[in-house]
């Protein structure tokens, strides 16, 4: 709302300059977006809170200024000379839907001379961003800016049957508004109609057919009060927002309608020389009772944190136009009709806090006992994040919106949550998998010349009826770039697998790897899973291609909830007291035999003193048949109760070799 400093001064004495006043506005909750100089005047651009429609006018702001400085408010003075003839003789008003129109005031003005407004008035309107139209329209706009009451003027001679009917629109009813657009109406909308048809959309915009034109002779002036919610809905439905609808949808002051009607009629009379018929036709079906709330004196300290003197309290209310009456423990306070936001004690406490000054209350900390706590698994989550960072993974946070086709590709089993009103076609669902958004992150980085990446995201995926937090690890390019110290080394499948194993071990998740139900977005020969907890591998080259990623991509998807929830107790084992013996066996195997087969066969020997098996070398080609490969394994033996002898360990080795030969045809490499 744009407010003229000079105009304010017509209603209230202001002992300070515009800049000082701007600071005061800020302190009482009238947010100042800008303060501009306009000729001899200053213009404030105020951001008025939605609960304070009474501040959408110069009089309303002047009232706050009065309360700020303790200055007296001067309501606008005007002289209205009424003609002999009564308005009721020439037209009538009826409200068919009083639930949507609480009051309708109308006046009849005869023999107006339509023309431009005087320069002073024009300048004032234009400084406040309102275009000057003609003297009648300008008068209604002027009074709206002055008093906050939206008004409308009809060309009286275009109103069929000399009547105004306030009613809901009919099905399929249409009206062409002042902006020349034909509007399709429905019965949820309130219109102003004459005997034949709708002539205006109530509280929003007048109709073109009843507009004031240069040849208009007689005017019907409307000053009404419409239901806020109905106006808001109609305005939204029609996509039509005006100065009038802006005020009505926040709540206009019902008692202002009649005063504004007289004020505007007087101004029109002054500007056009028209004759104002006697009487306001004032249809006011149910008078609105004044709002009364009680304020207990003790509540001020209890609620605000410090007491405020009774005299100060009463003074604040008086300046704001409230009427107070002392009670046993405080006050009974009646709010003026323009304060539609006041209904209970807290509303009054707010007025005191605002005008006494927020800065006058001390800053204290709540007194309490008890303790604070983080979300469940926060410790685990922080451990995980620290581990990942230490191991080279950087955290990303991706948008939750995704492309439906992409999501269905990665999670064909999940019905994605669809947005009714997405911002863009490719952001129409919430992600069901962390993979596509991660691949888009890769895309972005690769496009910016960054080809070595190790990323993770701990983020939500969504489906109908639920949200779940997952972890994704993703890497591509070099694990180590070439440097003066070391050669380059690409990130590979086993780096990823190692990371997954580390995580599972950190959180005591004991699962064996398997290769069941592997998602098709992985390279079929380079993927595996640990139960339902983790699935990982190299991204399928076709998927990488689809995302225009021209290098190998490694991805692991983990369910952190399941990982953190692991019930395994972490118990420490004693450090062994007896030395261990290591034996290396160099084996020759048929291609196709997996390491896991070898391990299982070794395990089958059931040697309890065999505490560790590790593969230490693997040769695909060498001095052996092409159908074979060589695998060196190291075996570590250790007993809990004695030092093992070489003879014992030799026996173990032979036993293991025997089993390997028998089960897998493995030979010891000479």
């Amino acid at each position, binding site marked *: 709302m744009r407010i003229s400093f000079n105009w304010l001064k017509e209603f209230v004495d202001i002992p300070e300059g515009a800049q000082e006043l701007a600071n005061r506005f800020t302190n*009482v*909750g009238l947010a100042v977006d800008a303060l501009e100089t306009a000729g001899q005047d200053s213009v404030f651009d105020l951001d008025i*809170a*939605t*609960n304070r429609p009474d501040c959408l006018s110069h009089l309303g702001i002047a009232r706050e200024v009065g309360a700020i400085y303790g200055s007296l408010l001067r309501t606008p003075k005007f002289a209205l000379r009424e003609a002999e003839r009564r308005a009721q003789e020439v037209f009538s008003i009826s409200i068919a839907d009083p639930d949507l129109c609480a009051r309708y005031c109308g006046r009849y003005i005869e023999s107006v001379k339509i023309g431009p407004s005087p320069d002073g008035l024009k300048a004032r309107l234009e400084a406040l961003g309102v275009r000057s139209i003609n003297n009648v329209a300008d008068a209604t706009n002027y009074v709206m800016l002055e008093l906050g009451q939206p008004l409308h003027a009809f060309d009286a001679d275009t109103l069929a049957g000399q009547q105004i009917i306030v009613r809901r629109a009919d099905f399929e009813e249409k009206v062409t508004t002042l902006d020349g657009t034909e509007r399709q109406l429905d019965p949820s909308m309130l219109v102003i109609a004459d005997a034949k048809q709708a002539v205006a959309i109530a509280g929003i915009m007048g109709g073109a057919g009843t507009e004031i034109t240069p040849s208009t002779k007689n005017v019907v002036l409307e000053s009404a009060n419409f239901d806020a*919610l109905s106006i*808001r*809905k109609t305005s939204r439905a029609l996509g039509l927002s005006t100065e009038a609808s802006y005020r009505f949808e926040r709540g206009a002051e019902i008692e202002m309608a009649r005063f504004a009607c007289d004020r505007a009629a007087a101004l029109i009379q002054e500007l056009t020389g028209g004759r104002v018929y006697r009487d306001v036709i004032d249809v006011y079906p149910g008078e609105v009772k004044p709002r009364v709330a009680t304020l207990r004196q003790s509540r001020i300290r*209890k*609620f*605000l*944190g410090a007491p405020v003197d009774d005299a100060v309290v009463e003074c604040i209310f008086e300046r704001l136009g409230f009427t107070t009456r002392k009670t046993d423990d405080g006050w009974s306070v009646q709010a003026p009709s323009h304060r539609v936001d006041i209904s209970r004690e*807290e*509303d009054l406490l*707010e007025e005191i*806090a*605002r005008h006494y000054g*927020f*800065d006058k*209350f*001390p*800053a*204290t*900390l*709540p*007194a*309490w006992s*008890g303790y*604070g*706590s*983080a*979300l469940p698994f926060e410790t685990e989550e922080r451990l995980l994040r620290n581990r990942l*960072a*230490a191991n*080279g*993974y*950087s*955290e*990303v*946070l991706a*948008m939750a*919106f995704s492309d439906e086709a992409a999501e269905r590709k990665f999670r064909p089993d999940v019905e994605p949550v*669809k*947005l*009714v*009103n997405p*911002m863009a076609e490719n*952001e129409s669902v*919430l992600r069901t998998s962390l993979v596509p958004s991660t691949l888009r*992150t890769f895309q*972005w980085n690769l496009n*910016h010349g*960054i080809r070595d990446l*190790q990323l993770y995201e701990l983020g*939500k995926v969504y489906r109908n009826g639920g*949200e779940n937090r997952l972890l994704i690890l993703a890497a591509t390019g070099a*694990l180590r770039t070439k*440097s*003066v110290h*070391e050669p380059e080394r690409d990130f590979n499948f086993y780096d990823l697998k190692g990371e997954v194993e580390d995580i599972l071990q950190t959180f005591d998740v004991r699962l064996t790897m398997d290769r069941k139900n592997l998602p098709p977005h992985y390279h079929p020969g380079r993927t595996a899973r640990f139960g339902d907890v983790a699935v990982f591998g190299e991204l399928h080259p076709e998927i990488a291609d689809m995302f225009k990623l021209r290098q190998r991509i490694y991805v692991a998807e983990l369910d952190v909830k399941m990982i953190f929830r692991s019930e395994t107790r972490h118990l420490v084992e004693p450090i062994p007291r007896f030395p261990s013996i290591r034996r290396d066996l160099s084996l020759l195997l048929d291609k196709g035999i997996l390491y896991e087969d070898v391990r299982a066969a070794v395990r089958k020997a059931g040697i309890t003193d065999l505490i560790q098996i590790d593969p230490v070398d693997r040769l695909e080609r060498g001095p052996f048949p092409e159908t074979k490969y060589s695998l060196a394994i190291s075996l570590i033996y250790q007993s809990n109760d004695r030092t093992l002898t070489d003879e014992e360990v030799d026996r173990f080795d032979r036993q293991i070799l025997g089993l390997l030969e028998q089960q897998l045809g493995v030979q010891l490499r000479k």
Partner: protein
Amino acid sequence: MSSNDGTGRLRAIEQKFNSELASVHDARSLEDIRTRYLSRKSGLLTTQLQNLGELPKDQRAEFGRVANQLKSKIEAALDTLQTTIFEREKQSALERETLDVTLPGNRRRIGHRHPLTIVWKEIEDIFISMGYTVEDGPEIESTYYNFDALNFPVGHPARDPRDTFYVGENMILRTHTSPVQVRTMEKVQPPVRIICPGRVFRRDAFDPTHSPMFHQVECLVVDEGITFSDLKGTLERFHKQFFGEKTKTRLRPSFFPFVEPGAEVDISCVFCDGSGCRVCKGTGWIEVMGAGMVHPNLYGFVNYDAEKYTGFAFGGGIDRYAMLKYNINDLQLFFQNEMRFLQQF
């Protein structure tokens, strides 16, 4: 052989030794000279002592004494030289191993935390230390929890599909984390003191200060005797902790449907310490939060006794705090996840 001859020989040996010793510079020639003079079988000095018997009896003692003296002298000189040479050789062995220590260290790649997580956790930790419990809730939320129970009237502009993402008739993507407050109050009676950090959604197109998805943290306290002063003190404490002790906090009256009195919270500009700069548009203040005393209507939704309990609530953008903390001027950087940005944290 006379004793004079004998001692003369010894003197000659000594002179010869001294002159030879001067050219000994390494362990090898040191060993050579030691052998030449002191070798048990053939050493120049040893053989003199071995030949003692050839001297007349009365001279033997004197010759022996002088010879032994010379022997000790030579031994001492050789030992001293040996120490020097060993020391020098150790030194040069180390010197040969000298590295170019100015080459950069061989650093492993370390990962970086996302700035929003850093700030998010920092905020959590401050409030946990002040006795708050962290709560979370669903991002796909009902209009009841997101609007109705927070005193947003039917028809409030925030409910408009132009501003809020709908996923069903009465289901939306939450526009703030306040629904968590309502859900918490439904579960427990006061005292309630929680913070709710989380992801929220509004239908804003991406630009440097807007994003359809961003992060908020909200705080709610409901207990007996909670005052507006407590709200002020808590906000002041939090901002001092987060931005530094010199940070000032100010509340300006404002309006939000779920609080009364409502306030906008400003902090003294973190870039100019309040003296006025481009970021704070010369005002010295930066708006960071909305706050206020919990509107009594809310207690009605969760069956709290509005007469017995009072409370405060506030909320702000985690993204905004991160932008202020790190001087980030474009919100989009948070979600592009470019390494050149992330590696700075």
